[in-house]
């Protein structure tokens, strides 16, 4: 069997010290296989974002072991962590986090530039990523000239531009209307059908309904883990759409 993309062993993250210690993530064990589509749900404050930030190497766990694509992240220095974020992970934030006053294509080029991809090739790949999210017409728009849904699609294009093995999304549809939500979910279905591993945090059952596997968190622990569709094969809704012509 191929090695899992994510392997967490007793990972904890605590904030504060002494009497006011908050265990945002509490001894979590988790294995996510390549090609899986995982939705993480749970009440506000249950530790979803904290877990996601650790998965994305944006934050480090207080204790426990996290292997990403077989690489133990604790052993990595700052330099190699940056490289991991650049090559292996695409991160989509609830608040988009695009660089202001900078065109969509320049934003998408960013991870490619840090990966050392040069001029023309970089531009081509960025434009291709924007085409995949349906924004071929908006290449030179600044974030302020785009709707929330379009900005989130630019952010997704940026996340997939380097072809990472893992796509992480923290409430990607939290700031979007239902129409934009449908667009983003269709995009995720497509990306997963094409083999990309996706972990998405959400409060919405509609979003969770697209995933192959649903985790529920409570007080920093994973309290339920349900599988809706096999790891191999298309995600449930994508299949449904394809099934009815």
């Amino acid at each position, binding site marked *: 069997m191929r090695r899992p993309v994510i392997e967490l062993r007793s990972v904890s993250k605590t904030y504060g010290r002494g009497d006011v210690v908050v265990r945002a993530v509490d001894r979590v064990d988790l294995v996510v296989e390549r090609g899986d589509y995982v939705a993480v749900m749970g009440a506000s404050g249950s530790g979803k974002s904290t877990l996601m*930030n650790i998965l*994305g190497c*944006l*934050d*480090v766990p207080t204790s426990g072991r996290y292997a990403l694509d077989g690489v133990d992240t604790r052993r990595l220095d*700052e*330099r190699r962590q*940056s*490289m991991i*974020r*650049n*090559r292996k992970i695409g*991160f989509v*934030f609830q608040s988009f*986090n*695009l*660089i*202001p*006053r*900078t065109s969509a294509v*320049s934003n998408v080029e*960013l*991870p490619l*530039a*840090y*990966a*050392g991809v040069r001029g023309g090739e970089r531009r081509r790949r960025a434009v291709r990523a924007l085409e995949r999210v349906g924004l071929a017409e908006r290449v030179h728009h600044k974030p302020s000239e785009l709707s929330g849904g379009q900005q989130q699609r630019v952010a997704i294009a*940026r996340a997939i531009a*380097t072809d990472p093995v893992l796509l992480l999304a923290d409430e990607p549809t939290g700031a979007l209307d239902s129409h934009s939500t449908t667009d983003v979910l269709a995009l995720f279905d497509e990306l997963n059908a094409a083999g990309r591993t996706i972990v998405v945090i959400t409060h919405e059952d509609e979003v969770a309904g697209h995933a192959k596997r649903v985790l529920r968190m409570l007080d920093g622990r994973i309290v339920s883990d349900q599988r809706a569709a096999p790891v191999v094969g298309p995600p449930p809704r994508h299949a449904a759409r394809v099934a009815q012509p």
Partner: protein
Amino acid sequence: MNLVQILQFAVRGVAANKLRSALTMSGIIIGVASVIILVAVGTGASAAATESLSSLGSNTLTITPGADDGAIQFGPPAESAETDPETDSGTDVRAAQLTLQDAEALLDPELAPDVASVAPVVTANGVTATYRGESHQVASMVGSTPSYLVISDDTVQAGAALTETDHTARTRAALVGVTVARNLVGGDGSALVGEVVQLSGVSYQVVGVLTEKGSDGPGGDQDDRVVAPLTAVQDTLTGYGPLSSISVKVSAPEAVDAATAQVTAILGTRHRIGTGTPDFTIFSATQILEAVGEITGLLTVMLGAIAGISLVVGGIGVMNIMLVTVTERTREIGIRKAVGAQRSDVVGQFLLEAVILSISGGLIGIAIGVAVGSLEVAGFQLIVAPASVVLAFVVSVAIGLFFGIYPANKAAKLRPIDALRHE
């Protein structure tokens, strides 16, 4: 990531934040330009003062009766004939006076080898010149020997100079300054040569017009004067009392101190001063130049300090802008790190942004400073001091770099999540 790429990000960063870039640059521009301009004002003023003073001649001494009261006098004291001897040094009851014999005693190759020539001077006050119904109040009426003209560096621009014969024959001949001549006959004044004018009612024949000194010196209009033989002036205007002053030409500018000592010794002996306070005062143009140099130097330092303050104010402006934008920029740094930027990429980009802003701001500041600094303001030419250009540029660029990089470097050290959460 290569340097070209980082430079491209830096240029984009500058272009994407136009207001911030403009404000940062304007702080640096104001700082640099004001330092250059204010120092140019100080340097220009000091050069102008020095130039007008150097017309007094750097190797002349002027001896006046009375003890040195410590006050700086500008120019030969025209009114000193009126000096009341009783108000001078308290212990010495002898009237402080300079005589013709004192002047002659100074021409002593043995005791005073550095004295080249000597001119006794009497001045007549309140002299009015009249000619064919025109009249003019003369600021300075000097009676002296022909060597006076040599010592004070005077020539005639029309007519002839006074001669030794005029002096010994007690001829009522006069040289007039251009201001006097113009006021009496108009034009360039040369029409007055050969004419007879009344000086306080006494007829003098004008033999020449003194060459124009030009600019107003510290003692007022230097061309508003009349020079006549000492003997004639004593005969007609002042009587045969003491001298107003003695002018001495020193053999070389370097010998001013030696000559001063020699003159002090000779007059001290003649006036039986012993170890007491001399009853005469010697001053040289060099002394005045030094004193004025000190004052203008102080002026330059003061303007420099004001300029330094504006540099600091500009720097604080730059600092404020940098600190205010740091929230936004820290988020940007968080985003860049989240998508894989190395710390060195981020710091490099912000360093280059700061370099671009500070250096172009500094260069614009220099351009403005040098442009304004080569103007003529209030009658004198501003002079740009190269050191001020270098100093202002270096300091303001350093400020720009520091406040550009320091917050960025701090932010680049954060974990991506902390940079993204920054508020």
